[in-house]
C-alpha cells in the first residue's frame, strides 16, 4: 500500500508537469491550428537558460527562475514574430514543417553550446520541503514541482477566465472570423499564445532538469510526450491536456513501479491506442461533425 501511495504521489506530480507543458502546446494548436514540433526544444531551452544562470553565472535561484521564464516568454514572442508571422495565410503543412525545422535548429544550437552530456543544477531545494506522510516520502523536487504546477494552473485559469487578453485568446480559438469582426487583434493573440507556450515549456523544462538533470536529447524527447498527452486529452482542450498529463504521468510511474522500468515509456502509448479506439477525439476533444 505504501509503495502504491508513493507511486501515486510521484505520478501525480510528474503528470501535473506533463499537463502544464502540454497546455502550452494546446494553446498554440487552439489559436492557430499549428502542431508545434519544436515543443521539446522549448523545454530544453528553458532548462539550459536556468542552468547557465544558476551554475555558471551564480544568480540567486528565485531570480534565475524569473529571468528564465521572462526569457522564454520573449523567445516565444520572437519565434512567432520572426518565423511564423510571415507564414500566416499559407497552408498549415508549411507552418508545421517550419516547426520541425525550428526543432532541428534549436537542438543543434543547444548541442553546439552545451554538448550532449548530462548537466546538473546545484542542489538548492531545502530538505525541509520534503513531505513525510507515514511511510510515503515525497522528495522536495516533487513538492516544489507540484506547487509550481498548481500555482501556474490557477494563474492561467484566472487569466483565461477574467482577463481581456485571455478572453480574446479564447475567442480566437473558438471562432477566428467572429473575433476579427469584433476588433480582436488576432496577430497579438498568436504572438501571446507562442509566448505563453514557451513560458510554460521553459518552466516544465526547469523542473524536469531538477528531477533528472539536463541533457539536450532527453529533455527534448520528453517534450515529445506532449503528443500522447494532448491526443489523450483531446487536442483542443486545455483542461483535457492537464488531465491527459496526469493520466500519462500515473501510467508511467505505475508501469515503472509494478511491471518494469524499461516498459515505462511504451505503456502510455499502448493505453493511448486503446483509449482512442473508444474515444477517437480524445477524452475532452471537440467532436467534429461535418455536414455535407
Amino acid at each position, binding site marked *: 500500500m505504501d509503495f502504491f501511495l508513493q507511486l501515486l504521489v510521484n505520478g501525480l506530480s510528474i503528470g501535473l508537469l506533463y499537463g502544464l507543458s502540454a497546455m502550452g502546446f494546446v494553446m498554440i494548436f487552439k489559436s492557430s491550428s499549428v502542431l508545434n514540433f519544436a515543443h521539446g526544444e522549448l523545454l530544453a531551452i528553458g532548462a539550459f537558460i536556468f542552468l547557465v544562470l544558476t551554475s555558471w553565472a551564480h544568480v540567486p535561484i528565485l531570480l534565475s527562475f524569473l529571468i528564465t521564464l521572462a526569457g522564454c516568454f520573449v523567445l516565444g514572442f520572437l519565434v512567432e514574430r520572426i518565423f511564423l508571422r510571415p507564414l500566416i495565410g499559407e497552408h498549415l503543412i508549411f507552418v508545421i514543417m517550419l516547426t520541425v525545422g525550428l526543432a532541428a535548429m534549436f537542438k543543434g544550437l543547444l548541442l553546439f553550446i552545451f554538448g550532449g552530456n548530462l548537466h546538473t543544477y546545484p542542489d538548492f531545494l531545502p530538505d525541509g520541503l520534503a513531505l513525510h506522510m507515514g511511510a510515503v516520502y515525497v522528495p522536495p523536487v516533487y513538492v516544489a514541482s507540484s506547487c509550481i504546477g498548481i500555482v501556474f494552473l490557477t494563474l492561467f485559469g484566472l487569466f483565461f477566465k*477574467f*482577463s*481581456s487578453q485571455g*478572453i*480574446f485568446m479564447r*475567442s480566437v480559438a*473558438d*471562432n477566428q*472570423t*467572429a473575433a*476579427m*469582426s*469584433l*476588433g*480582436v*487583434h*488576432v*496577430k497579438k493573440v498568436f504572438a501571446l499564445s507562442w509566448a505563453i507556450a514557451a513560458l510554460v515549456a521553459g518552466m516544465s523544462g526547469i523542473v524536469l532538469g531538477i528531477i533528472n538533470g539536463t541533457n539536450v536529447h532527453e529533455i527534448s524527447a520528453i517534450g515529445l510526450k506532449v503528443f500522447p498527452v494532448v491526443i489523450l486529452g483531446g487536442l483542443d482542450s486545455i483542461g483535457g491536456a492537464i488531465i491527459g498529463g496526469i493520466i500519462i504521468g500515473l501510467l508511467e510511474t505505475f508501469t515503472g513501479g509494478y511491471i518494469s522500468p524499461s516498459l515505462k515509456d511504451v505503456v502510455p502509448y499502448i493505453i493511448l491506442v486503446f483509449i482512442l479506439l473508444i474515444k477517437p477525439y480524445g477524452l475532452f476533444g471537440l467532436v467534429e461533425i461535418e455536414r455535407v
Partner: protein
Amino acid sequence: MRAYRGQPRIFAPEKMKNRRAELKVEDLCLNFGGIKAVSNVDLEVHTGELVAVIGPNGAGKTSLLNCITGFYKPSSGRILFNNTDVSNLPTHELTRLGIGRTFQNIELFPGMSVLDNMLLARHIHCRYNFGLASLFWPSVKKEEMRHREILEEIIDFLEIQHVRKELVGSLPYGMRKRVELGRALALEPNLLVLDEPFAGMTLEEKEDMVRFLLELNTAWGQTMILVEHDMSIIMSISQRIMVLNFGEKLAVGLPEFIQGHPDVIKAYLGETTDLELEA
C-alpha cells in the same frame, strides 16, 4: 411579445452626432491570382443611408464587403472612411474606427450564451484598466453595469429577451442571425455592414428583420450597407442600390432606376435573342 418602444441609448441624439459614416470606395480592385473578384468599383455611402449591393452569385458582393471591413486587402484602389484611408488597416483598427459587420454564414461563439457573445463586442468601449479591474473597483463595476444595460436595451429592441441566457448553438437559425445583428450593434458602429441578413430565413423571420433594419435606419439614422438576394426586400427598404456583375459595377441608383435598368435585367435574366429573326 411586446415590441420595444424606447430608443436604445446607443442611438441617443447626442451619440448620433458623432456617428459620421462617410465611406468612399475609389477604383477598388481585388484579384485572387488571375481571377478578378472586384474590378474598378466605386461606391459612396453617406451618413444615414441604407445602401444595398446586389448582383448574381459570384458577382463580388461579399468580396467588396470583405475589403471594406478589412478581411481582404484590396489589390489596388482606395477605401476612405471619414476621410482617412483605411484600405490597408487591420480589422481590429477598423472596428475601433466604427465599422461593424455580420456574416453570410453566421459567425458566433456557439458554446457561449447570447449575452456573452454580445458582451465580447463591448470590449472596445471599456475604459477601465487591468489594475482597477482586478481590484473590483467601484467605478469598474459601474461601467460594467452600464455595458450590461446597453446590451439589455439592444436585446429588448431585437426581441430576444427569452433567449438571452441560452447557448447560441442551441438556437434556431433565424434567431442566431438576430443575435449576430445584436452583437454587431453592441459595437456601436458608425457603419453597419450586413452580409445577406435575410438568407435562409422564413417569411416571418424576414419580416421581423426588415422591421428592425428599417427602424435602425429610418428612426435612428444607422448607416448601413447590405448585400442581399431577396429583391422585394431590397427594392422596398434601400435608398440606393449598386449592382455588381463579374466584379464590375453595372449601375448605381434609386430602386426604381435599378428595376428598369436594361443591363441589370440582362445580368439577372440573361440575354434574349430573337429566335425567329435568326431563322
